[in-house]
């Protein structure tokens, strides 16, 4: 273990004088600051490429939400059919989240894997746009399915690249940056798709609405092609770095064994319930938000889209911040409870009052950041390290299953019974999450209160644990 790179040194450090192999001479352009994989500027540029890797997928994921009113009217579909665009994205990921790591580690390798998933994302969006242009609803659903095959797995590939290039103290910052970039992509989508639609529409008078829609979605596919180019370039640079630095390929490294599931404690399943019960009140709500804000608060489409994008843009900034704070303070369960209760309050505000939605959506963005930052680390505290892959896999699988089903149900509720009942439906789910949270706290208390410890106590406990294992090793 002596060769373990010290955290203070850069990963691909130069000055490794013990290497006797020939180091490749970098000549010309390759030796400059920007092209040398050992130097910070090159890694910074690679970081930019990595961040844009899933920009297209996040941008296009919420195209339906940004264009809900025009989609429903141009394609003559019900709200429930509209929400199937989201359901079909989630369906493949119920299963695929178990295989993403396997595909990257054993089948494709990180470089090819990222490219393939990017191709699925681009292809899916193109099929989606084609379906809109020809007014074929089933083709649009197929497009979203193909898009889904690539979308989540691409995020796994992105994380794998990050771990490979930035392992160590920079990793958390890189993860945070990647997530923020993605959220920015979603926000940009919300705010520019309607103006683009209006622009195209004004240049094509007399054409069918769905033709204009198709063209606009093809333009969205442009962001996916941009991400694909990033994937290709990233693959080239990664291969080159591998050759120059003689490093290993990035691996996801998580092994998924379904037989681990029987070992999971009750707390793990409660965490899964909280995850699904909470997330289904955020993403399907944003999917349906545009028309809700237009009709209840009399907003025009651009104002409604701006309000709808608040959750994303606020979490882009707040997630890293709260992540830092929660890491410092611990008490994760209390933070999860806080996030759930605050979101409950926001939905209640939106349902029962006419208070400016900017207020409730901003607060919801903060609450969402709090919950996401506090919930996922809990998994690492309840499940041993060799089972973490399976744990995250099952959590995401259940989450996608919930999103797929609730998306359709939410759409049906709106069609039949309106938005008040939709909000009440979401409030009910948040109550489920809250109950699971309280139960999690009680179970945890009865088992010694490990999950909700402040980080101070946690480090003390770890230290005394290390000390006692050391004591054990000493001969009597």
């Amino acid at each position, binding site marked *: 273990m002596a060769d373990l790179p010290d955290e203070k040194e850069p990963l691909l450090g130069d000055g490794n004088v013990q290497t006797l192999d020939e180091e490749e001479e970098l000549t010309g352009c390759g030796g400059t600051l920007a092209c040398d994989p050992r130097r910070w500027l090159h890694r910074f540029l690679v970081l930019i490429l990595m961040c844009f890797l899933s920009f297209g997928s996040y941008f296009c994921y919420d195209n339906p939400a940004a264009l809900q009113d025009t989609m429903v009217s141009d394609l003559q579909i019900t709200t429930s059919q509209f929400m199937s665009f989201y359901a079909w994205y989630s369906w493949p990921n119920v299963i695929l989240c178990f295989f993403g790591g396997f595909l990257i580690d054993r089948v494709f390798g990180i470089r090819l894997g990222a490219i393939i998933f990017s191709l699925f994302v681009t292809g899916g969006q193109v099929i989606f746009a084609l379906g809109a242009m020809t007014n074929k609803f089933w083709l649009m659903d197929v497009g979203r399915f193909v898009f889904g095959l690539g979308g989540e797995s691409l995020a796994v590939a992105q994380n794998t690249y990050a771990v490979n290039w930035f392992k160590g103290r920079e990793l958390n910052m890189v993860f945070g940056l990647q997530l923020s970039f993605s959220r920015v992509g979603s926000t940009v989508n919300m705010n520019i798709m309607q103006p683009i639609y209006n622009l195209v529409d004004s240049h094509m008078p007399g054409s069918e609405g769905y033709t204009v829609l198709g063209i606009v979605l093809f333009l969205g596919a442009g962001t996916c092609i941009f991400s694909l180019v990033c994937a290709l370039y990233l693959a080239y640079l990664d291969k080159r770095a591998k050759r120059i630095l003689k490093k290993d390929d990035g691996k996801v490294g998580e092994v998924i064994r379904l037989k681990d599931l029987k070992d999971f404690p009750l707390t793990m399943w409660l965490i899964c319930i909280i995850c699904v019960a909470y997330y289904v009140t955020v993403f399907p709500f944003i999917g349906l938000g545009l028309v809700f804000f237009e009709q209840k608060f009399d907003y025009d489409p651009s104002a409604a889209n701006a309000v709808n994008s608040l959750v994303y843009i606020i979490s882009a900034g707040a997630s890293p911040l709260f992540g830092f704070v929660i890491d410092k303070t611990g008490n994760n369960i209390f933070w999860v409870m806080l996030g759930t209760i605050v979101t409950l309050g926001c939905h209640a505000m939106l349902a029962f009052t006419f208070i400016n939605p900017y207020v409730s959506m901003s607060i919801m963005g903060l609450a969402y950041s709090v919950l996401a930052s506090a919930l996922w680390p809990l998994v690492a505290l309840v499940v041993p390290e060799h089972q973490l892959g399976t744990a995250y896999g099952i959590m995401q699988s259940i989450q996608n299953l919930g999103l797929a089903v609730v998306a359709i149900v939410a759409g049906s509720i709106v069609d039949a019974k*309106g938005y*008040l009942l939709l909000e009440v439906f979401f409030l009910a789910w948040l109550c489920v999450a809250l109950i699971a949270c*309280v139960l999690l706290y009680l179970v945890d208390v009865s088992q010694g209160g490990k999950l909700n410890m402040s980080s101070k106590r946690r480090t003390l406990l770890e230290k005394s644990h290390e000390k006692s294992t050391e004591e054990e090793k000493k001969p009597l």
Partner: protein
Amino acid sequence: METVHFLIFIQFLASLVQGDVPVFNRTLSVMEFNPGCNASISPCKGNTMDTPNIAYTVAKGPKDSLHYVFSSIGAPTILVAKTTKTNMKLKVNWTKLLSDNVTDMKNSVQFSPTPDYSFAVVFTKLYEYNDTDDHANITQVPLLDKLNMSQWVVRDFKNFTWEDLSLNSDAKQNRAVFKTSMINVPFKNNTNSSVSFSMQVFGTDNRETIFPQLKYTANSTLIDLELNEVTPSFLQSRYAVEMVFLSGDGKAGIKESRSIDDEYTPGVFKTVDWKMDRHTSKQPQELGSFVQWKPVCYLTPDRDRQNDTKVKYYPSVNTTVVPQKSLAYAYYGDQLPTVVMSATNVSFGLEKDKFYNKFNYTVWTSVIGYGTPPADEISVLVIVVIIAGLGTPVLVIVVGGIYVCVKKKTKLKVKADFGAESSYSAIN
């Protein structure tokens, strides 16, 4: 949270005990078509394409009766009279009513003995305009465009011809349907074109089952206005109607209210009430009348939500112009100078909805009645879900809190009993 659902619950209870929302039933007489119009009166006999149409129903309640008279003579009119006398009858002098001489029409329709209160709503004009700027606002469309071409087609309902009432109506359901007949002059040669008014009287409180699922009471009637394949005159046509609200005693005003509840009309949070309150300051305040609607209309006969569009209303004005040749004129006759008349326009459409031309269809529903306009209340389902949904975690928290407290107390007790730490860091 507790305050919120407590307040809603109180509102729910309050709505049940509101005195002026009728919770009684009325028995309805079978609808009569053209009462007293027999073959001996020349316009009554035979099967003319322009038939005189009057539908008459009496809704008898425990305390009073409402007499409804619907007619398309002159202009589609709803006339309602309220009386406490059980022997009040409608008397129509058909010869005078259908005479070509307009002054003969006066007082040709009467109730005897006179009712306590009456009001009428008349649909006077159908407007069609060329919405070149796509604003869906009739106040923003000039009379002529830049090329001096007219942007408006104004059709007076008095020039329409109507089919025989009995062909399309359902007397047992107390539903009268007035439909324009095929040879209507204002429309081009499209045999499917029709403008129709459906007027239905109810004896109980309930809600229609199709959108917009308006609530009606034992004091009201449901009016559907349907513009079916009316051939548009422009490529970007939109329609509007002019309505006049008359009463012997009242002052009128339009108010829009908004609610958090859109259960019955998904996506529509507003209700518009055009109320005619009583002018007299008698106590207790006597009931006036109203026209109520939700600002939504549908562009397909299925009334699906993806093809709904907005209904806009414009400020009402008091008018002295009498809708002549209509039943209201025939009834109010000599009283007209003292009758309060309020007029407004209601237009159909919203920007970017691709105009009337997209589907060539519009249907709009309103409720016209006596007394207080019905108000939507939050349904029991919502209240139950809220109470159960929010109550359960509170319960769990309370129970859990007690459990934690008890556990801590026993831990302290153990500590006190043994005088040592009862928990020690685990070895493994």
